[in-house]
């Protein structure tokens, strides 16, 4: 209970104007990147990762949280207005929102999306603060063999959930593990894979991988797909007059959707957020499908269902809170955004785990507060202030935008360590990620393999060392057995059950 009150104290840190400025700035950046098709909040955080070297950890984490929440919500803007989801998690919103847009109720659809995002995001943040102390207690019970099986579970889930190309997912994850083995061994002072160079003895930093995989590769992909007409909004949409009062959903419509739909979707989103690799898209889809199954108005789905928008948006924003749980307690990121936030923690010398909550709760509590306030205050405020101009975001020339992204990515790689080598490394990883993306290999799996690889190796070697090399330790240890059983169950559910009945939208 004490920890919960310490976490609540995080709101006090936001009274500092600098921290508050980073939260609002982060939210606006996240809204812009989330609303622009092709750009995501992951890219926004990736571009800002090098900057976190130069600022304190509290504003850095506060900014990351507000970008995360904003990116998840703002994907619904272009999904509704021009039927192009700004983020993958807004696909379900596009189905319903754009139908309403065509009926002349675009502002109403945006209002419902914002309201559901606000409710879902707030519930997700409250659940995060309420259950973090419990999660910390549970994580203390897990011993080394159990930690190995948990990391293995996370990697298996990431591979099988992502895109369905299992073999390519394994290749991408192992590639990340291979990069992670460069440098000093995890247990002994022995350099590995430095190929006689001093630079590689320190290992590969997360920053060039993140910049390369998410920023440089995006610029290369956009260069390949570039069309002179891309980003042009049709005249009818551009000239559309939206009044601010149209954004406020009528009470009768909110009653029709029902309080239960918002809350149930938020819990679904939070639960899916805890699963490694699942992310906002799956949260939105599962919640949307659940709401449709239980709806009193199923015929409205596909024709502009406000209930469908509410279910999808409440879940994907609530997912933000859930995704922080495995990252903060076990160092296992739930999605690419939390993977980069983990990078921010590590850069600042913070190690995930129950001790983080015990000893440094004051550093992470403002991040939770930022997540909550971004959902509760900034989502409706941004919609009210900037809503009428949202549709024009996509009119920004792509040439200007991607040139600016390239400059931020490269100069950012330089400023993190004042090293031209880091810039070259980022471009190298960018080229690799570009080829991987073109060939349907997941760069997210590569990043998570890079992050989780050292943990997997460390826990495996420690467990076997403690049991004199007996691998049965993973079956005789109850927590390890639990996670191995969970892994087997998950593989069965996803691979065999879904072949009979596809669940991916």
């Amino acid at each position: 209970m004490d920890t919960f009150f310490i976490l609540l104290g995080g709101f006090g840190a936001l009274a500092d104007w600098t921290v508050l400025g980073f939260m609002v700035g982060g939210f606006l950046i996240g809204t812009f990147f989330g609303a622009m098709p092709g750009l995501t909040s992951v890219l926004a955080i990736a571009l800002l990762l090098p900057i976190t070297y130069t600022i304190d950890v509290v504003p850095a984490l506060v900014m990351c949280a507000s970008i995360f929440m904003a990116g998840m919500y703002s994907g619904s803007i272009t999904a509704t207005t021009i039927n192009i989801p700004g983020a993958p998690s807004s696909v379900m919103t596009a189905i319903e929102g754009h139908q309403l847009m065509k009926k002349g109720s675009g502002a109403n659809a945006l209002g419902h999306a914002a309201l559901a995002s606000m409710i879902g995001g707030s519930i997700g943040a409250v659940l995060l603060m309420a259950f973090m102390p419990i999660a910390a207690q549970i994580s203390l019970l897990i011993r080394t063999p159990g930690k190995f099986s948990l990391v293995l579970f996370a990697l298996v889930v990431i591979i099988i959930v992502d895109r369905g190309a299992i073999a390519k997912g394994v290749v991408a994850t192992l590639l990340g593990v291979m990069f992670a083995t460069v440098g000093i061994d995890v247990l002994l002072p022995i350099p590995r894979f430095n190929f006689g160079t001093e630079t590689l003895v320190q290992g590969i930093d997360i920053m060039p991988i993140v910049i390369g995989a998410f920023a440089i590769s995006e610029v290369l992909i956009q260069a390949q797909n570039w069309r002179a007409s891309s980003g042009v909004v049709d005249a009818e949409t551009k000239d559309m007059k939206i009044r601010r009062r149209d954004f406020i959903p009528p009470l009768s419509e909110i009653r029709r959707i029902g309080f239960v739909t918002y809350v149930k979707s938020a819990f679904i989103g939070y639960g899916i957020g805890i699963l490694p690799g699942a992310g906002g898209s799956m949260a939105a889809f599962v919640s949307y499908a659940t709401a449709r199954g239980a709806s009193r108005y199923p015929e409205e789905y596909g024709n502009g269902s406000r209930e469908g928008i509410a279910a999808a948006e409440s879940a994907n924003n609530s997912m933000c809170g859930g995704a922080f749980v495995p990252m903060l307690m076990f160092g296992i990121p739930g999605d690419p955004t939390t993977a980069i936030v983990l990078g921010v923690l590590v850069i600042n010398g913070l190690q995930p785990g129950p001790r983080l909550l015990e000893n440094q709760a004051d550093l992470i509590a403002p991040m939770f507060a930022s997540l909550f306030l971004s959902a509760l205050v900034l989502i409706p405020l941004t919609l009210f202030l900037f809503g009428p101009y949202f549709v024009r975001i996509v009119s920004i020339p792509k040439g200007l935008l991607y040139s600016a992204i390239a400059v931020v990515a490269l100069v950012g790689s330089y400023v993190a360590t004042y090293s031209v080598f880091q810039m070259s490394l980022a471009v190298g990883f960018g080229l690799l990620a570009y080829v991987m993306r073109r060939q349907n290999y997941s760069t997210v799996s590569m990043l998570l393999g890079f992050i989780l690889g050292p943990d997997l190796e460390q826990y495996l070697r420690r467990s076997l060392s403690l049991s004199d090399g007996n691998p049965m330790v993973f079956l005789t240890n109850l927590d390890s057995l639990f996670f191995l059983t969970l892994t087997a169950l998950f593989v069965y559910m996803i691979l065999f059950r879904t072949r009979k009945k596809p669940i991916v939208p």
Partner: protein
Amino acid sequence: MTVNRFLRAGILFPLVLIIVTTIYLGAALGIESQFSSPEEISPRAIPMLTAWLMYLALLVVLFQELRSGPGDADQPDGGSFLRPALVLVATAAYILLFRPLGYSLSTVLFVGALFIVFGFETHRPLRFALYAIAVTATFYGLFAFVFGVRLPAIPGFVS
């Protein structure tokens, strides 16, 4: 036809990764530990296991690619590879010139090169130049003034 079937990117990429994995495995075999006891797993064990799993996964990918034939991934959206190649050349030149020319000059040239690749304002030279200078100045302001980062100066000038 048969040559094309084997030389497409879907096949070439896993083949390149097989070569990379072989180099990695060779380096893993060369890792010597003077500290670990016989019952401990040596520092080369996990890299070797990773390499063998990689071979296995790559063989499955190759098998799947050969069975499926040329797919959409090899003709992505009909886009040209010329533009990404030009972006890479411009980026390589930018990295090489970043310190010798300093942030301002190298960034203006880099942004200009990207504007040409993306076809942005290429018919209006004045706007083209103004936008390139504006992008350079904006990010100089962000990095140097907001975040207090020292960027390389034009030779002969103080940053």
